[in-house]
């Protein structure tokens, strides 16, 4: 045998274990992996920890060699509609460092990894209503449940929409519509999302994942090289888009946040606006005795 051994990238099972608090992952025999966002098994509560994990997940899973396709989806009828107050405490304790390390870096890495580092086709399955829909919509393919509502809440909470949702909307929608939804925070129905080209089809909720796997079957029927090279052809537009306006636009959002601070801990829930009552399994509100310094330190130590 040769002198040395290959250094192995973490296996699918190791990646699945690493990310289990944020994503439930399943792998088909043929390498189609489904990644489902969750919080303690229930609908997603937006946290700093998840925000950081998403970019890492795309990077780790996207280059894992036995993964041939990634389906990305959420849990129940909420996509991202609420914030875990305790998780976002570091932003109030150390705003400058947190916003650079965990917003500017993590926020950009999330999208850059999805576009640059995933070698295989991605299918976003928009299973719920709310914000941060770019997580599904920046996939190569995207479908949605026919009962969801899409919105971007940035302007509603006084922030510049510069975290990649702008890139997503500009890339997919006619410009007029993109600007309207970004500036107004208005709600978009599933039919409008289809009409404007955010998704290529709407599917009844109970048939959503079946349809996702049908699409996966279609892609997996092709040979590996064709599938992967065709994916790069499809990605080119996204690569150009995020190079064009992600980095410094995020800087604009951070400038805005600095001059008029809107901390995630204080951001209101979108659930009333959307008429949703998610069956959360995780906590949203600040517990009785919060050790703010400890929470901030934990974020600093996160690698």
């Amino acid at each position: 045998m040769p002198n040395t051994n290959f250094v192995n990238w973490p296996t699918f099972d190791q990646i699945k274990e690493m990310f289990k608090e944020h994503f439930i992952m399943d792998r088909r025999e043929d390498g189609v992996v489904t990644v489902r966002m969750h919080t303690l098994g229930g609908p997603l509560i937006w946290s700093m920890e998840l925000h950081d994990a998403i970019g890492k997940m795309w990077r780790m899973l996207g280059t894992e060699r036995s993964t041939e396709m990634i389906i990305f989806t959420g849990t129940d009828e909420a996509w991202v509609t609420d914030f875990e107050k305790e998780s976002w405490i570091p932003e109030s304790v150390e705003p400058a460092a947190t916003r650079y390390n965990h917003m500017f870096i993590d926020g950009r890495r999330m999208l850059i990894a999805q576009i640059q580092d995933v070698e295989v086709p991605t299918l976003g399955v928009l299973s719920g209503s709310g914000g941060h829909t770019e997580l599904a919509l920046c996939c190569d393919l995207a479908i949605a449940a026919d009962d969801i509502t899409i919105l971007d809440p940035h302007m509603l909470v006084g922030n510049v929409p510069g975290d990649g949702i702008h890139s997503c909307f500009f890339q997919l929608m006619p410009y007029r519509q993109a600007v309207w939804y970004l500036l107004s925070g208005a709600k978009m129905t599933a039919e409008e999302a289809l009409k404007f080209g955010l998704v290529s089809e709407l599917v009844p909720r109970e048939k959503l994942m079946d349809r996702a796997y049908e699409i996966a079957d279609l892609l997996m029927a092709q040979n590996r090289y064709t599938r992967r090279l065709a994916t790069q052809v499809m990605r080119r537009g996204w690569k150009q888009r995020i190079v064009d306006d992600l980095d410094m636009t995020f800087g604009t959002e951070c400038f805005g946040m600095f001059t008029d601070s809107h901390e995630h801990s204080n951001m209101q829930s979108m659930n009333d606006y959307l008429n949703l009552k998610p069956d959360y399994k995780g906590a949203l509100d600040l517990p009785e005795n919060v050790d703010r310094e400890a929470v901030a330190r934990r974020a600093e130590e996160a690698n």
Partner: protein
Amino acid sequence: MIRGNYESDAGKRKELSHAELGTIPHMPFEEYSERLKDFLIMKRENGILEARMHTNGDSLQWNAQAHQGLHYFFDWAGRDPDNEVIILGGSGPDLFKGIGRQQPDGTWGIAHEFASEPEHAWRLYDYQYYDGTNDIEGQVFDVEVPTIGVWNGAAFHTDLVLFSDITLCTEDAWTTEMHFRVNMVPGDGIQIAWRELMGRKRFAYAELTGEIITARKALELGMVNEICTDTEAAYARAHEIAELIMHTGTRQTRRLTVQQLRKPWKQDVANELRNAFATEMWNTATEHSPHEVSFWEWAHEEAELVKAAEKKGKVIRPRLDGGREEDEIK
């Protein structure tokens, strides 16, 4: 032979009577030169407007007066139909004296409009981002006529003389890209000018090390078109070139030609300026970069050494402990 082959059409433009049409005359030279006189000395002859930045007749003290007034200048003078060529440069020994404002008692005061502490964060928008973006956009979008920059002596904010169609400098001219050296991100348009004129690699080096760019280097790199012996010679040469332009193309040709020349600038400015400037502001806010005059004094010290070394064919490389004359490895 290339010389002024045709007659200048200065003063010959046609215009229908405002009184008859009810149109509104553009703000005249007499009015805007008066409004801006505290930091710009202007004179006009044969359609050629010369504007010299100054503070009390001497090198400009950089603060909101000029930072804000300049975009008014680009708007009012840039669109004045009676201007055919605009020359913009400095007074005294240097283009700029430094950032700050001389107090009535003669002491040098801080330009606190550039403060960035949280309680003053609103100033970042109004006095840096707003005025700064409009300064760059003004130069590139608002000026309808050919422009010539005159760079005399020491300068920062060199965009003001580099975005012009033609740039002349004095033999003792020099600059350093200040941003990174005072812990700031170069996002205010300076990065567009320098990158375009000297190339990416040279700009990255100049920005990250604070390399002193002398007149000779600027000429070699393509940042300036000619070196002149001194300030008056530079202005005289600017006027001569302006007259050459006037004796070559007609009014419409001149004005349309410069729009073509400006197109790549417009593309870069539209593509980058606003977001890069905002990012610079965010970074300034969190890093509390000093807008102080001391950096400029240290830069002067280094510039003198660099110029002296240049005369001997040697270089002073940017180093942790600077100021050493070395041979250049070619």
